[in-house]
């Protein structure tokens, strides 16, 4: 009996530790320190133009964070649906910028996530490192090659019309003069994040 009680207490303590550990982790990100103030009013979910597609609504994700359900939160599709429209952020009565919380969750999840969204943001990051700027055609081609090369065929008709409208160019992108500085910036960031 004593053993069972000890185990139960251990679980309770561990849950509490998990909850505070995840809150502490998020507090290290801009805007993440306010998550603990969430009072579950649901204004974020009501304001979100995409919450109807999410498996867990923004309000629910906030409660899951506070409960320390780190793995479940990071596996959720919620943050990948956020379009950064900031409707929740300007309405939250507790002053929590949910959009910033979503950024924090994505930057944590992207290290292990294997989905289309993660691949897109990673491709964008690599493409800007290469040229210092974003070039739509280069970005879309690299994204397709990374995820589903056959999708290039599907993109074809729209791409062709954009070419004809002069909205895309077949001329290979050139890097900005400061491209080496950009590479250095990426390296410095990686060094600081690696050391953190």
């Amino acid at each position: 009996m004593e053993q069972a009680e000890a185990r139960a207490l251990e679980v309770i303590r561990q849950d509490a530790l998990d909850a505070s550990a995840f809150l502490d982790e998020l507090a290290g990100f801009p805007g993440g320190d306010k998550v603990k103030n969430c009072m579950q009013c649901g204004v974020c979910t009501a304001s979100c133009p995409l919450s109807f597609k999410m498996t867990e609504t923004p309000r629910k994700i906030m409660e899951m964070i506070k409960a320390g359900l780190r793995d479940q939160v990071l596996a959720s599709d919620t943050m990948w649906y956020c379009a950064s429209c900031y409707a929740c952020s300007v309405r939250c009565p507790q002053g929590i910028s949910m959009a910033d919380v979503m950024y924090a969750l994505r930057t944590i999840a992207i290290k292990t996530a294997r989905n289309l969204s993660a691949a897109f943001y990673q491709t964008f990051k690599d493409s800007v490192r290469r040229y210092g700027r974003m070039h739509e055609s280069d970005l879309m081609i690299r994204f397709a090659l990374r995820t589903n090369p056959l999708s290039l065929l599907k993109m074809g008709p729209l791409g062709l019309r954009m070419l004809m409208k002069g909205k895309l160019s077949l001329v290979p992108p050139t890097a900005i003069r400061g491209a080496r500085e950009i590479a250095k910036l990426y390296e410095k960031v990686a060094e600081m994040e690696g050391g953190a």
Partner: protein
Amino acid sequence: MKVATAPGTEGQAGAATRFSFFPGCSLHTTAREYLDSVVAVMGALGVELEELDDWNCCGATALSSADMLLSYALPARNLAMVSELGLPLAVACNSCFVTLSRANSVFRSEGPWRAKVNEVLAALGRKVSKPVEIRHVLHILRDTVGLDRIRAAVKRPLAGLKVAPYYGCQLSRPRHEFSDPEFPTEMDEVLAVAGCEVVRFDRKTKCCGGALMTTKEDVVLEINEQLLREAATRGADLIAVCCPMCQMNLDAYQGKINSRFGTRYELPVVYFSQLLGFALGFDEAVMGLARGFVPATKHLRKYA
């Protein structure tokens, strides 16, 4: 940067106002007509835009989804260059506006993120010592140039042209010291002095989904259909925008939306600056009014 002058407006606008200008990646590729029309309109109204030399991509919301420190440090390189010039910064793209403003915000007070970003900049021999003043071109038009000066420069009032003003999200959110976060009016005001009939548009700041068109296409087509539906219901001839993402989603995907939802929208989606430039007397071709997938030309013929 060479500034075009609208016919007959030379020397009319009074003393020039100078801004450093961050066009952003889209304005150099898919949104060329936004760049051309903004530069022309600003020049005609006496605002000198000096393109920031060798600027880099702001990173948009893609980088704030991929790498937190990078998403502050990358745009901060631009801010460092602007602060060296000592000019306020003009931005036309909503996404650049929000991203540069977000990076700028870390320089408002001492804190760990300011220190981190400055540590990255120091490795490049750069520094931001105080926040840069960042303005969207719509706010420069309304607040710096002023509606009276715009009205006085209008050569072709677009009377009877019904325009749905669509702002998207990132002009008025999360920064909203210049206008209401949900019902901004600056574009309405600028278009009204150009003579347009600005129709009521309740979804003016409802999201178009932005870059999610690439990763979550089905749902993004759905929310764009709702935007087109309201504009059509309000009797708009066309939709005016101030962001390249909104323009792309509503215009280039309109055909796909029509086939997906069985609708027959044929709504041109143009930048407010194209309409304003046309009203100021610039040629329709110079303003790129036929560059959209749904060309705006037929609605403008009667004013030419």
